[in-house]
Each structure stands twice: as C-alpha cells, then as structure tokens.
C-alpha cells in the first residue's frame, strides 16, 4: 500500500507485531479472560512503543468492524464483500440484480445515488463555485448537490442536499427547489440550505418568497437580512441573519459567543466522521474566525484556547476532553 502523505504514522509496524496485536485482540474477545492473560497482554503492550501503536490500531480496527455489524451496515457489508467469497455467489448477485430490475434503484436517495443524477456536487470538505448560463453563479458548500432545469420561461435549481449560495442578475424568474418546497429569488443573492426535515433560506439583498409544498399559493415574502426556516406546511422560524453566517463562501467559519457543542456540530459538516466534546464542555463559549480548509487546525486552536485534549479514537471519531490537571 502506498503511503497517503503526512499522516500520524511514524515507524512502520512490522508484520509480526501486527499479528501479535491481532492475537491479543482475539484473546481478549474470548468469553472468559483470566487475570494472567490480562497481565501478559499488558506486559506485551508496555514492552515496546511499537506494540502499543499496533494495539491502538488493532482496537480501532475492531471498533470499525463492530460498527460494520450494526443492523444498518451489515447487509451492505455482506452484499459488497460476498462476491469475493465465491464465484457462484457473484453470479447469484448478478441474477438478483437482473431480477430486481429498475424498481429497486428508484426508491432511495443516498449521497451516491444523488451524485449520479445531480448536475453538480461537492464532497465533504469541498467548496465549489459553478458558473451557469445567464450569469448565474452558484457556490456549493460542503457535501452538497444540485440539479438544474432551465427553460425559456424560468430557471429552476433543485438543491438535492447541502447548502448553496446563488448570485444572479438574470431577468427570468429564478427558483430553488428543496424537499419542503420552493424559494423564489427577488434580489441578486440567495442562500438556501437543506436541513433534516426543513429548509433554511436567506437573502442579503432583495428578499425572497417561499412556497411550502403542501400550502399552495400565495407565497410568504421575507425581507432582506432575515433567515427563515420552513417545512412542507408552514413557516417555522424567522430571525436576523448573523454576521459571518455565510462566511463559508469565503472559506471561513465564524463563531460569535457560540456554544462549543453547537460550533463543533457546525464544524463537523466539513469533515468526515464524528466530532464532539465532553458534555461538561458543551457550554463553553467560542468566538473567532477560522479557515475551513484544515479543520484539524481549528481543533488545535480550540484545544489551545480552552486547554483541551483532542482525542482521536479513530480517524473518524474525534472528541474534545478537558486536559487532566497535573498541578
């Protein structure tokens, strides 16, 4: 395997050490583990820094495998890996695929399926600017996808997931569609975010109109500088746009006295995996402007400001904890 650039890896772990780590993992997974076995295991871990490193990897591996066994993941893992266990099962899968026909494909909206049918998409941590016809410019925030329907009468952009910022001077009616309804752009700028179960929209200039799907006409108009949330039926909330709320379009994230827990939830959108903090730290107040291109640096800055430890359980599971007080 080729190295993936600067990672946390220092010296490579020799194969026999990796095998020993696996051996201990199996020993400790047995139903009854004797005190003696535990003592030997600890001895082995402490004998060499490489042993400890291999052990940490073995544990990360083991936790990854156990999440693979959860009800939502196991059928997927089985289906994906089954073909390598026999030639016959590969054929069986193919038969199943043919039997299932087109119907099985249409039902779900996973990120992968969306990327197949979307016109533009961004992966987690990416930020794209797309120039469309009519001087319409779309910026896609992290993990976002859009689809376009342009005809001579109107311009419709469907936001499949994530968040977008539109800048346009088109004379034609311009709409953004989400799961909950439609947003019409009245000015030159419009921000829309698809959230879990509702849509959030704002405009810094010109205002906007919203049409919740189940409500029908007329639209609800919203003044510039306001952020609204709505679901399929009605307006849910309205508040002034905070300064720096759209800073992602400049590659930044801004906090102004935000709760640490809320800030981390926001930051987590820009990286894969879990990002959280010890519940006792959730109410710490964060202020600052941080660049988004390297979220590890943001965590480092936070940890220094608040004297916290950044704990990596795996590459994808990061928790901020209070630093033990040594004094």
């Amino acid at each position, binding site marked *: 395997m080729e190295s993936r650039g600067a990672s946390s890896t220092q010296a490579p772990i020799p194969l026999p050490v990796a095998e020993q780590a696996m051996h201990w993992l199996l020993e400790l997974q047995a139903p009854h583990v004797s005190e003696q076995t535990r003592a030997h295991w600890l001895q082995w871990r402490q004998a060499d820094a490489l042993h400890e490193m291999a052990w940490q990897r073995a544990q990360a591996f083991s936790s990854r495998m156990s999440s693979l066994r959860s009800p939502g993941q196991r059928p997927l893992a089985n289906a994906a890996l089954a073909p*390598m266990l026999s030639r016959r099962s590969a054929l069986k899968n193919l038969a199943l695929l043919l039997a299932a026909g087109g119907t099985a494909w249409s039902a779900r909206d996973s990120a992968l399926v969306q990327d197949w049918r979307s016109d533009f998409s961004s992966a*987690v941590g990416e930020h794209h600017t797309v120039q469309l016809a009519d001087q319409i410019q779309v910026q896609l925030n992290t993990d976002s996808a859009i689809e376009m329907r342009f005809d001579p009468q109107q311009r419709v952009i469907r936001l499949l997931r994530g968040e977008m910022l539109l800048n346009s001077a088109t004379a034609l009616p311009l709409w953004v569609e989400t799961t909950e309804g439609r947003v019409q752009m009245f000015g030159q700028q419009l921000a829309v975010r698809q959230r879990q179960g509702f849509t959030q929209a704002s405009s810094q200039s010109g205002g906007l109109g919203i049409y919740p799907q189940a409500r029908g006409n007329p639209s609800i108009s919203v003044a510039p500088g306001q952020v609204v949330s709505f679901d399929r039926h009605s307006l849910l909330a309205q508040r002034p746009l905070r300064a720096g709320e759209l800073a992602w379009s400049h590659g930044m994230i801004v906090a102004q006295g935000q709760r640490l827990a809320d800030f981390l939830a926001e930051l987590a959108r820009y990286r894969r995996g879990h990002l959280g903090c010890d519940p006792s730290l959730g109410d710490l107040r964060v202020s600052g402007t941080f660049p988004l291109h390297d979220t590890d640096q943001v965590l480092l800055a936070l940890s220094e400001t608040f004297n916290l430890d950044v704990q990596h359980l795996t590459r994808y599971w990061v928790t901020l904890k209070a630093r033990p007080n040594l004094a």
Partner: protein
Amino acid sequence: MPSTSPASHHGLATLYREQHSWLQRWLRCRLGCSHSAADLAQDVFVRLLAKTELIEVQAPRSFLATVAQSVLSNHYRRQKLEKAYLQALATLPEAVIPDLETQAILLETLLELNAVLERLEMPVRKAFLWSQLDGLSHGEIAERLQVSIATVKRYIIKAGAQCILLDGGWS
C-alpha cells in the same frame, strides 16, 4: 546517473508530455468512455509521482501500460463493489439506513477490506469474514472449513494483521 527524486520527477514530466495522450487513448479503448479515461490517466501519473525511485523509461509505453493495467483493474473492482453496495442500499428498510456520513465511511472501509482480502487465500477470507462480520464462533468456522480451531485463529490473525498494517486506514 543521479537517482534523486527531482530527477525522476523531471523524467516523469517528459513522460507526461510525450505519452499522456497515447495513454488516454489506450485507456479510452478499454473503457469506452473518454471522461473516465482522462481521470484514470491522471491516476496513473499520480501513482508514478508517489514513487521515489527513478523511473525506467527505456520502453515508456509498455511501462505505462503496466501501471495503467493495475489502475484499471482497481477501477473495475471499485465499480463492482459500489454497484453491489448501492443495490443492497436500495433494498434496505428506511429505518435502518445509515446517515450519509456513516455511508461514506462504510464504503471506504469496504473498499479497504476488499483490497486486503483479495490478496489472501479463500479459506483465510472466509474465516475472517465469518468471524468478524457474521459473528460465527471459531468452532463453527473450524467445522465449516474442516480445519482445526488453531488454524481458524491463525487465519483470522493473518487477515486482521493486514488490516492493521493498512497505512493509517483505521486510526
């Protein structure tokens, strides 16, 4: 002749300039799609960039074709796995579908596992997946494979060690 890394990158630049369009055509013939051919040609050169040793360019085309072949089979493997994955996803009940983040991690894990297991013999693969994914006991696996429990453990350790050695993949 010095074999420093800048020298080899210089060689790579020449290789790129002279052979890139040939490579892209070569890939397009095999893929039938110019879009992926361009991506994969890029992958080939990225792979070469990661190599530190001096690149032998006595027979540039056959050299490139060898690297491209492995990039290509990687690509097919990935496609096959993603297809099986998506198909299973479509049949999963709504309530247990993992969130998108989990799905992204899951797919990456599966690709890594697939790459590791592929290099191992069939009984080792079976022992590993039956124990780690299906949760069968060592005894049950021994019975299915008609081998001793000690052998089953050896198999699981062998496959698991390869996973641990994956560069930073799990931690």
